[in-house]
């Protein structure tokens, strides 16, 4: 089932939680609503579910207007952030709840319910825990039971609120892959909310980046990362280093630091901020003709194939810069203690003084 959200507005006591939100989710897609807390993503999810009523706008399932349709008739599967399992019921009874609430005519018989519950618990790999109570399960297990319960009525729309929010890093990663896999198996149109960039990038077909009740950008994970539509999106997707300085049409300067940039006239003279992603630079023992950015190593952490370095600018800039090198490059560099190193950016994002994104530039 496709979902269309059309011009939704929702205010809570004068505060606009959502302002003119429109969104299309094609049949069978897995869409991630990504944004910081307070961006309105959970409110949007709850409006799609019918748990909140929008002040304005429409929600359509398969082009049918369901805005005023009662929650219980929307037939969406919903997974709460804190799972909201019925704590007085066993795992099996939790999963069977929806089936037992069906009107008498549609309600499957006792054996059919039991068979369906087993099938669902097998799907989420929880079939050995059927007799347990929610309090006896770990976070990841509760999550899977909540998912099985949401899928029991074969919804055509599955909504998940911060599905991995309360789990530790390892379980989270595992469940993420598993959800992706599950989605390919059952192909239900799904929307999930997250504040975790990595999660949105890994799981979604489409990412919807939200901030302060607005949609900043909709696109595939690759698009929003490579071609961010706004400063906010660039900022929010992964760590960035902001370099502030002055530009005179050819050279960007800040204290001791100099960069030769050709922006083809796109950036006016004056204040110019450059965004540098940690993996888009390397280090050398000597400055290059086009880049003179002296730094000192402050800290390093080795994790997997990359080495994350914290660099202190020498004679320019203010904050610590973060740069990622691969292990071999780092080993070849092998700097001495307190040795001055030179940062060589490969690609930079310009931010004009009015806060808009300018062109991406490479020093040359």
């Amino acid at each position, binding site marked *: 089932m496709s979902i269309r959200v059309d011009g939704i507005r929702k205010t809570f006591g004068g505060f606009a939680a959502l302002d003119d939100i429109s969104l299309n989710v094609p049949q069978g897609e897995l869409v991630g609503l990504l944004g910081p807390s307070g961006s309105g993503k959970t409110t949007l999810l709850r409006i799609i579910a019918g748990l909140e009523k929008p002040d304005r706008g429409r929600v359509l399932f398969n082009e049918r207007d369901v805005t005023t349709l009662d929650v*219980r008739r929307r037939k969406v599967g919903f997974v709460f952030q804190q799972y909201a399992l019925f704590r007085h019921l066993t795992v099996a009874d939790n999963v069977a*709840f929806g089936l037992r609430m069906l009107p008498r005519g549609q309600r499957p018989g006792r054996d059919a319910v039991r068979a369906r519950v087993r099938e669902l618990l097998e799907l989420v790999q929880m079939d050995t825990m059927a007799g347990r109570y929610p309090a006896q399960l770990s976070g990841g297990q509760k999550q899977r039971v909540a998912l099985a319960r949401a899928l029991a009525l074969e919804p055509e729309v599955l909504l998940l609120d911060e599905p991995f929010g309360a789990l530790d890093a390892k379980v989270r990663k595992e469940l993420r892959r598993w959800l992706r896999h599950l989605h390919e198996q059952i192909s239900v149109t799904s929307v999930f909310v997250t504040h975790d960039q990595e999660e949105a990038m890994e799981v979604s077909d489409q990412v919807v980046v939200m901030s302060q009740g607005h949609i900043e950008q909709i696109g595939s994970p690759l698009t929003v990362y490579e071609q961010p539509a706004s400063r906010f999106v660039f900022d929010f997707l992964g760590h960035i280093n902001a370099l502030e300085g002055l530009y005179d049409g050819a050279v960007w300067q800040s204290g001791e630091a100099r960069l030769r940039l050709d922006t083809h006239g796109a950036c006016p003279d004056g204040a110019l901020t450059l965004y540098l992603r940690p993996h888009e630079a390397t280090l050398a023992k000597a400055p290059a003709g086009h880049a003179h950015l002296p730094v000192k190593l402050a800290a390093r952490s080795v994790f997997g194939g990359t080495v994350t370095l914290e660099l202190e600018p020498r004679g320019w800039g203010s904050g610590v810069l973060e740069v990622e090198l691969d292990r071999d490059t780092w080993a070849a560099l092998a700097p001495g203690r307190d040795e001055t190193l030179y940062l060589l950016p490969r690609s930079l994002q310009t931010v004009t003084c009015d806060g808009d994104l300018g062109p991406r530039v490479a020093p040359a």
Partner: protein
Amino acid sequence: MSSANRPHKWHQWTLVAAAFAAVVVLLVLPLVVIFAEAFAQGAGMVASNLTSDDMIGAIQLTVIVALITVPVNLVFGVLLAWCVTRYEFRGRKLLSTLIDIPFAMSPVVAGLCYLVVYGGQGLVGQWLDDQFNVQLMFALPGMVMVTVFVTCPYVARVLIPLMQSQGTEEEEAAILLGASGWQAFWYVTLPRIRWALLYGVVLTNARAVGEFGAVSVVSGLIRGETLTLPLLIQMLNEDYNTVGAFTAAGLLAAMALVTLLLKTVLEWRQSSKLNAAEETLT
């Protein structure tokens, strides 16, 4: 486990001993005296007092008042707690404060208020008398009304903090799974609040059975007709029927002790359930 320390200095022990002494002198001793006085002239006198018409009438009336009051306040308390914890509306805080009026107000004042409004000279009372020839005061209806008033906060007050802390997500989950509002209440809300609800019922019942002030104002103290157990105790005491008064008092005290026992069992049950849930987590 508990974070409290064992007392280990002499002044700490003194404090504990003082607390025990106060409890014995103020609470236990009078209770013992009640039973001792009742049986002072032998079990035969107790039995004959227990089977007197006045006593049986009072017991019946007390039970009837409690039997009406408890269900009324059960439903009322659940509704009130539901409104206050599940809906967001203007005046919600006010409503939750108003619930406490019976706690704050002296029961005698409550009785007088009812007398003024529903009595023969009262606005509503006069109209009811004229139109339907119904008299509320100095009869069972009035006594039930004031008892309901005095005991109405108990269930709501027990439920509100619990329902607030539990939140609405499980009910939302139930409705998303196709449950009607009633089904969500019956299959999700009620099982989660049942022990607290029972606890509220026990408290309501204890207060309904023992209520004196408000009931004495509206009962009219008609012997054999509008005397509940607490009122009968007062009456017998004034008649210098010590054994009778103490027998009735003993009966009330016994009811209170049973209530206390029930309350303790319920509390123990609730906390052990919580502990069990926590233990399996770790």
